[in-house]
């Protein structure tokens, strides 16, 4: 079965999961106490207005009708409905909130790769040397430091005492690359640290395993320099399990994004979801949970495809 067919099969697999997520996010929120209208307005709004709004949003129709209507809008014309209180179009809200989150998650993953992998190599090559113990301890530290505490400390150091990076806001690197990158540095570091710890330990353990493999000795017997043996032969093999770890931890990364967006005031989908939960904007919440789940599924797919690309032994069955 060719690579293309494998990809198609994986994409089709996303369908059922998205269906499950949409059902839960739609159902759970609609049926909870304090229906959308009462909660959104939150005041002793006079009954007729509440009734009128329920009519207007068709909230009195049976559950499945409303669910199919909602999903239909999304699938057919990408219309996620309206926010209740200010009639803002949810689709545009989601559209504007998605890029910052993607930039943040991607830069977080990048940080985790560019810190985690070299650190993993250093500590594997210097196995049981001081560098190894130091790197491992830092990795544990990275894993244990709460990202919001790290974020606050980074703000304190890098935008208060030594003001080089802005402490909040988001500029899309597409519009203004320099400013864009500057605003992303601290948040990316905050989000990426924990994952870089996981990547580093994964890289270290898989490298140690690879070093004991026969083909490494063959490479050395061919007269290759130590750097070539490590960077070309060993790392290429060790990357395979490490890549899957980054993919597996995307959920962890996304969790971190929600909090980091709050600290650095990045108008991403994490913050949108958090505000939607607190202000009971159900349409926004349902839409954003669906988008996050889709993001999640796509990343898992990307990890698998990268895995198949890196390891020629994988057959696409």
């Amino acid at each position, binding site marked *: 079965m060719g690579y293309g067919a494998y990809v198609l099969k994986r994409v089709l697999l996303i369908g059922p999961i998205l269906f499950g997520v949409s059902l839960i996010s739609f159902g759970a929120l609609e049926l909870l106490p304090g229906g959308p209208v009462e909660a959104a307005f939150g*005041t002793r709004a006079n009954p007729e207005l509440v009734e009128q709004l329920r009519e207007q949003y068709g909230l009195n129709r049976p559950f499945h009708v409303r669910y199919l209507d909602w999903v239909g809008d999304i699938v057919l014309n990408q219309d996620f409905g309206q926010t209740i209180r200010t009639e803002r179009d949810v689709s545009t809200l989601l559209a504007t909130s998605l890029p910052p989150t993607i930039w943040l998650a991607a830069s977080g993953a990048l940080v985790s790769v560019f810190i985690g992998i070299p650190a993993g190599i250093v500590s594997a090559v210097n196995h049981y040397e001081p560098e190894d113990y130091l790197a491992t301890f830092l990795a544990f530290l990275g894993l244990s430091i709460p990202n919001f505490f790290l974020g606050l400390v980074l703000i304190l150091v890098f935008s208060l005492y030594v003001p080089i990076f802005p402490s909040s806001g988001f500029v899309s690197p597409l519009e203004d690359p320099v400013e864009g990158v500057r605003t992303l540095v601290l948040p990316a570091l905050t989000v990426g640290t924990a994952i870089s710890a996981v990547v580093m330990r994964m890289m270290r353990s898989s490298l140690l395993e690879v070093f004991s493999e026969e083909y490494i000795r063959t490479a050395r017997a061919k007269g290759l320099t130590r750097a070539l043996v490590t960077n070309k032969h060993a790392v290429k093999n060790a990357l395979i399990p490490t890549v899957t770890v980054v993919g597996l931890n995307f959920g962890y990364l996304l969790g971190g994004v929600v909090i980091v967006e709050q600290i650095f005031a990045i*108008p991403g989908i994490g913050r949108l979801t958090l505000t939607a939960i607190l202000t009971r904007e159900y349409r926004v919440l349902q839409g954003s949970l669906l988008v996050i789940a889709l993001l999640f599924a796509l990343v898992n797919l990307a990890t698998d495809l990268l895995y198949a690309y890196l390891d020629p032994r994988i057959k696409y069955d």
Partner: protein
Amino acid sequence: MSMARKTGGDEETGDRGVSRRTFVGAAGTTAATALAGCSGGDGTPTPTSGGGGGGGDGDDDSTPTADPAAAQRGGTLVAGMQSGLDGRDPHLVQAASTLRVLENIYGKLVEIDQDLKPVGQLATEWSVSDDDLTWTFQLREGVMFHPPESRELTAADVVYSFERLLNEDTGSPWRSNFTPIANVSADGDYTVVFEFDEPYAPFLFKLSSGGYILPEGADDASDYDIADQPVGTGPFVFDENVAQARTNVTAFEDYWGTDGDGNALPYLDEVEFQVIPEGQARLTNLQSGSIDWAVTVPPSQADSLEGSNSITLSNIPGTFYDYVGHNTTNAPLDDVRLRQAISWAISRESIVQGARFGYATPTQDPIPPASVWKDLISVDEPYSQDQARAESLREESDYDGEELTIQVGQQFPAQVNIAEIVQQQLGEVGITATVQPTDFGTMISNLNEGAYDLTIVGWSGFVDPDDMMYLQFHSGETFNQSNYSNEEVDELLEQGRQAAGDREERAAFYDDAIDIIAEEVPYTFLEFNDELAAWRNSVKNFTHISTGTPRFRDVWLEG
């Protein structure tokens, strides 16, 4: 329809886009006595403007008499706001941050000045009929609307705007301010007449909050959508909005306003309202110069700005006050002695210091310190912390140790701190209470349904005593969440609303009412928070108003 309240969020950390700051203008003088242009109460330069009453001769404009000659034109002022636009239609929005932006885009007949008094904006003068039932406003001529309307403002636009506000289908949160209006009509191009069935003293102040003027036929305009593209008469035109990030407005060339020497306003080319929810972050950006002006500086950081030579910290008494709300029908709080015990147990000074770092003034009543009504309405027998008296009252009452819950909005840490202080001080007099942070939306529903014992929450933006007390303490009114009912107080509030006499006369009713309210403790008033704003020294000629509303029409940037 409701006017929800606004809690501490606006002060410090992220205002979760939930807050509703209601601006309600205080009632000016009523009809009969003509009052020549009233100059500022406490010597601050006030705009020469038409006062209330007949024959007010409002001259051309209301800019403070700064030295306009040195004013430099151009530049972009970046303002750090607490949250993004919650909507773009001024008739449908109540969130503080949103209204602060729309204030610079839309115009209104009457606005509030530094002394919280109504002054003319689109209306040059106005008069009231002898029976106080008909208000007639003269419109300023030559006022242009923003593109794509780009035409002169006429009475028809004003009539259209108020009919839109009164129309239930619009679903405007401001509607209850204007329901007393029986009819609004245009008399020619530049005169608008409002008719009432009974006198409505606070009308001028109601106009100054929420009475925004939209072009006629805005809802079904073909070439723009009013919900996305605001079209007003203000000094700046809506340019762009990026959700949760920033809103840009650019100077309106045909703006009617001019400065003292007659050169056109506004001075600035553009204003960018940036969303920076974290108070600390707003401050950092202000210090680093990436923003020029910052709303609500966190009190905890205010001291560090005092000494700064590049930043001006403006600290004026605000219109936002915190209070302990009692649910007077919910045992054991139905016993007034327990409520009094609670009032005597609380030290307002420690709340001002603990929760607001000293940037607040203790209060016994809902009258803002800066308000002209302050010295006319006051509680004769004020409360202070007296633990012995509190304990004796508690023993007298039929309270026997039940645990009271204090509900507070979880999004507003300052108020959660107040709740913790109150809980501690109640504990010291034998009243056990627990703090229950709840999602703000849910909490408001609980307060409406009476599903609470005590609550820490606040009101803001009130300038007229009617707004401070009528809807809160009159039996059965929408905001009487304490379920408080006292005929005498109802009687006094109704008289206050319809009183024809001058301010002293009208104040008398409220002064009596507040004494009864203080006695029966539906509320324990705590403190009025200072209105803190800060801007770089390059920002010139900014007028800081107690309601916190930023008007950039006559502001200019140096260098």
